[in-house]
């Protein structure tokens, strides 16, 4: 009975992801289910529309920069949070977790106010930096989970053999943390690539992909959006598969922490 119930819940979770596939290859111009015929026209429309392609490129740029920043700041931060014995670390730990808890709409209008003054509205790197605030907690959660299971004596051994601390971390620690780091980078990328609320306020006229999709849903629901959705689901699926392959379950172990 438990299994049947759980099966229904999983079906509920997967249903919306599955339904966009037939819609995206429909020949009908409006939503019709089941589709009357087959056509690639919505994918062609996406690929031939400079508006969609520009938005996609902008989102990839912002997500890439966000990933680099979140990893560059978050991994060193995790070392400090896990290893320092000082009291300020607890306060910093709370501060780093806060962006998950504080509603995004509050952060969005707060940053909107600051960014308008700095004339950063509409700059893709502004969106990327703002997304870094939201991605940082994910990176810290995964990296510190990995770091806590790492035996620091290995670094001391390397240091005893004459390696500087940075070399020891680079050659000994980070390679062993790779599963956590791969998962963290993936989460940072996807969280920025999918983010809409911050982007709504900060991206101005130069839309990111989620903003473009939002406007498209508000104006006219045509199946182009289904084609874009399918491409996004496939992207996440591939990234998730790669993370499972190279992340060796870091994601799952962190969840069950």
């Amino acid at each position, binding site marked *: 009975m438990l299994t049947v119930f759980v099966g229904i819940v999983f079906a509920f979770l997967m*249903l*919306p992801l599955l339904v966009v596939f037939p819609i995206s290859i429909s020949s009908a111009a409006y939503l019709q289910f089941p589709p009357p015929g087959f056509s690639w026209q919505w994918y062609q429309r996406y690929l031939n529309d400079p508006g969609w392609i520009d938005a996609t490129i902008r989102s990839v740029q912002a997500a890439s920069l966000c990933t680099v920043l979140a990893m560059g700041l978050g991994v060193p*931060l995790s070392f400090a949070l*896990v290893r*320092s014995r000082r009291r300020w670390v607890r306060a910093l730990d709370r501060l*780093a977790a806060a962006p998950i*808890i504080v509603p995004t709409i509050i*952060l969005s209008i707060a940053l909107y106010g600051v960014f308008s003054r700095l004339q950063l509205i509409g700059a893709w790197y502004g969106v990327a930096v703002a997304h870094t605030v939201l991605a940082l907690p994910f990176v810290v959660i995964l990296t510190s989970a990995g770091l806590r299971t790492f035996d620091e004596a290995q670094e001391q051994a390397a240091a005893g053999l004459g390696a500087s601390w940075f070399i020891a971390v680079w050659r000994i620690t980070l390679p062993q943390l790779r599963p956590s780091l791969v998962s963290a980078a993936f989460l940072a990328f996807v969280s920025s690539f999918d983010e809409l609320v911050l982007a709504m306020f900060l991206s101005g006229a130069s839309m990111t992909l989620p903003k473009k999709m939002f406007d498209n849903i508000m104006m006219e629901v045509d199946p182009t*959006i289904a084609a874009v959705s399918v491409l996004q689901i496939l992207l996440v699926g591939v990234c998730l598969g790669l993370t499972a392959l190279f992340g060796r379950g870091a994601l*799952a172990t962190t969840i069950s922490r």
Partner: protein
Amino acid sequence: MSSRVADARERLLLLLALPALVLLLGLFAFPVLRLLAMSVEGGSLEYFEKAALDGLYVSVLADSLRIASVVTGICLVLAYPVALWLSRAGRLGLALGLFALLLPFWTSVLVRTYAWMVLLGRNGVMNRMLRDWGLIDAPVMLLYNTSGVLIGMVHVLLPYMVFPIYAALLRVDPDLGRAAEGLGAPAWRAFTRITLPLSLPGVSAGCALVFVLSLGFFITPALLGGGRVIMISMLIEQQVREFLDWPFAAALSAVLLAVTLGIYALVGRFGGKSHLATP
């Protein structure tokens, strides 16, 4: 370790934390505090008074709290059995289950909301199927009302409830349940007396997370509510975008933030965890 070495080590760790600290202060703490300060501009509480005295704003806040409670309740009922099943699943079941949770979890909220519009619309998949099976004559309104918003929000927030409960269940020693059954307790009794109480920290953590996240929800109610369901975050957005009333938006933000942090503090008191790295 001598104290000089320890000091040098602490200095290095502080240095490592510094860039992230600058980002968090400059682009998180400072902007949010600056916004909150706007709500008491001129040293008066008039904007809070406006929010408290106008029936519209009070009812939006009440609606938001009500929707967040219902979403939390539904998520709990759906998530607990899933977490329980996962905690007892074999390797393959666990891998499939986590995939079924993580794929939607990491798919854009926008994509999922759009998919629900396709499913729940007047001529959508659901209505079509119900009509074909002869269960209904006229289309049921599932979209652009509270039920649509609830379905969409539960779908987005369910994984946030499953993960903490699953983590709590994994920490329960399976031998305890076996011991209870060995002593003659039927399986359901072993569950209600042993497993369930020991998993409650995960339940409270999951409930707090889902409640707080749903309180601040924006995209899903904006799209699936069709303008009929207004939540507090939509009100804040409207004040900034349409009326450019920053102090009032700031006051509403302060209220939302106070409720959010209040719930976290409450759960934290009863043993939940709201921090990241320190075990």
